[in-house]
C-alpha cells in the first residue's frame, strides 16, 4: 500500500540526525518492545510480511510521528488484535480478561540462542527457471495495490538492469495477505538516478532495489 512507510524520495523531514551517544535503547520500554515483538513473532501466528503490513497500515500521520519502537508496538497491538490473541478490552485494562488462544510455539529463554541463530530464511526451492538473467533490461510494473508490496513508489514504471539473481524467495505481497508463500525469483535491479528522478538527478547516482519476478517485465 502507498502508506506512510513508503518514504523513498519524500522531502520535508529535515536533516539526518545521528545521536552523539547512540544508545541501543533510550528507555526500558524500547527493550521490552523489541523483545515482545521478537517473542511474539516466534509464536508463528504471523509472518514477517504480515508484521510489516500491520505497521504500514498505521495512519500516515501516526506512522510519521512515531519512533520506530513505537511503530513496532502499535503494529504488534494490531497483530494480536487481528489474530484474536488479545481483545481491545484487554489492551484497555492492561490485563488478560479472556482465555488464551492456542499458539503454535512459545519461545523459551533457553531456546533464544538457537532461534536467533536459525533465523527465518526466505529462500525456497524454485518451481520454474528464472525468467531473467544478469544484464537483462527490465521495466518495473506500474501498480498501486491496496495490500502490502515491496515495490516502492519511486521505482514503479522504471527501466533498469538485472544485476543479481538471488534465488526464489517468499513473495511478500502474497504472504502478507495470508495467501501463502508463493515463492518467486528475486533479483537486484539497478536503475540510473536519471531514470528514477529525472534529468536533474545526481549524474553519479545508481540505485538498486530487490524485486520479485512479477514486479518486472522485459524492457
Amino acid at each position, binding site marked *: 500500500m502507498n502508506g506512510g512507510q513508503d518514504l523513498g*524520495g519524500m522531502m520535508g523531514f529535515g536533516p539526518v540526525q545521528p545521536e552523539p551517544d547512540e544508545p541501543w535503547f533510550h*528507555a526500558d520500554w524500547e527493550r521490552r518492545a523489541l523483545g515482545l515483538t521478537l517473542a511474539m513473532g516466534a509464536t508463528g501466528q504471523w509472518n514477517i510480511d504480515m508484521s510489516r503490513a500491520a505497521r504500514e497500515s498505521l495512519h500516515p500521520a501516526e506512522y510519521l510521528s512515531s519512533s520506530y519502537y513505537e511503530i513496532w508496538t502499535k503494529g504488534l497491538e494490531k497483530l494480536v488484535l487481528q489474530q484474536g490473541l488479545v481483545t481491545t478490552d484487554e489492551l484497555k485494562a492492561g490485563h488478560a480478561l479472556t482465555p488464551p488462544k492456542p499458539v503454535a510455539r512459545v519461545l523459551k529463554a533457553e531456546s533464544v540462542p538457537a532461534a536467533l541463530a536459525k533465523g527465518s530464511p526466505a529462500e525456497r526451492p524454485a518451481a520454474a527457471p528464472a525468467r531473467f538473467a544478469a544484464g537483462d533490461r527490465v521495466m518495473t510494473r506500474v501498480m498501486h495495490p491496496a495490500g502490502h508490496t515491496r515495490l516502492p513508489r519511486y521505482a514503479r514504471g522504471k527501466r533498469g538492469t538485472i544485476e543479481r539473481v538471488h534465488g526464489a524467495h517468499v513473495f511478500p505481497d502474497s504472504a502478507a495477505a495470508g495467501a501463502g508463500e508463493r515463492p518467486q525469483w528475486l533479483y537486484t535491479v539497478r536503475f540510473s538516478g536519471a531514470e528514477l528522478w529525472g534529468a536533474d538527478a545526481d549524474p553519479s547516482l545508481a540505485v538498486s532495489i530487490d524485486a520479485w519476478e512479477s514486479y518486472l517485465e522485459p524492457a
Partner: protein
Amino acid sequence: MNDTHHHHHHGHAHGHDHSELSEIELRVRALESILVEKGYVDPAAVDALVETYETKVGPRNGAKVVAKAWADPAFRDRLLRDATAAIASLGFSGRQGEHMVAVENTPQEHNMVVCTLCSCYPWPVLGLPPVWYKSAPYRSRAVIDPRGVLAEFGVALPAATRIRVWDSTAEVRYLVVPMRPEGTEGWSEEELAALVTRDSMIGVGLPLRPGEARP
C-alpha cells in the same frame, strides 16, 4: 498531536516529551502483562532477546568480517561471492542476516545501504540499527540525495566517484566493505578491525585512518 510551537522534531523517541513517553510506556507494559498472563510470551525469553542484542551482537562482528577481507584475499573473494557462507564461517549468522551480500567500495564506486520501506539491517554483523537509520530523513533522502546525506555525516566523496545505493526491499541484507585505509600494510586483523566503523559498513562513513582516534 505535535502542536508545540515551532517544535518540528519528529521520529526520535528522545524528541518526545515526558507525557508521551509515559503513554507508550504504559502501552508496552499493558501489552507485556497481557501476553505473559496469556502464556504467549515467556518474560525470561524477552530478557534473553534483549540481552543478546544489547550485549552480544554489534558492529564489532562486521568489523571482523571487513578486517579479514582486507587481510585475506581468499576470504575477500569468498565474501564477495557468497557473503552468507563467508560470514557464517566467522560465527555470525541468523536472524536478519539469512541472506547476506557484501559490496565492496572502490575508488570508482561508493556503496550505501538503506531500507526506504522499513528498517531492514544486517543484525548479525551490525547489531540493531541506530535511530537515524530507521527514521524518515535517512530513509527518504538516501535514494534521491545521497551526497547530501553523506555531507551530513561529514563525508565528501570526489565528484567522479559513482554512488551506488542499495535499497533493502527484500530479505537480502547488505554489508559495505569499505576501502582499506592507506598506511596499514602488515597490520593484524585485530588492528585493522579497530579502524572499521559501523557507519563505514552502512556506507555513510569511511574507516578510520591509522592514528585516528575512534570518534
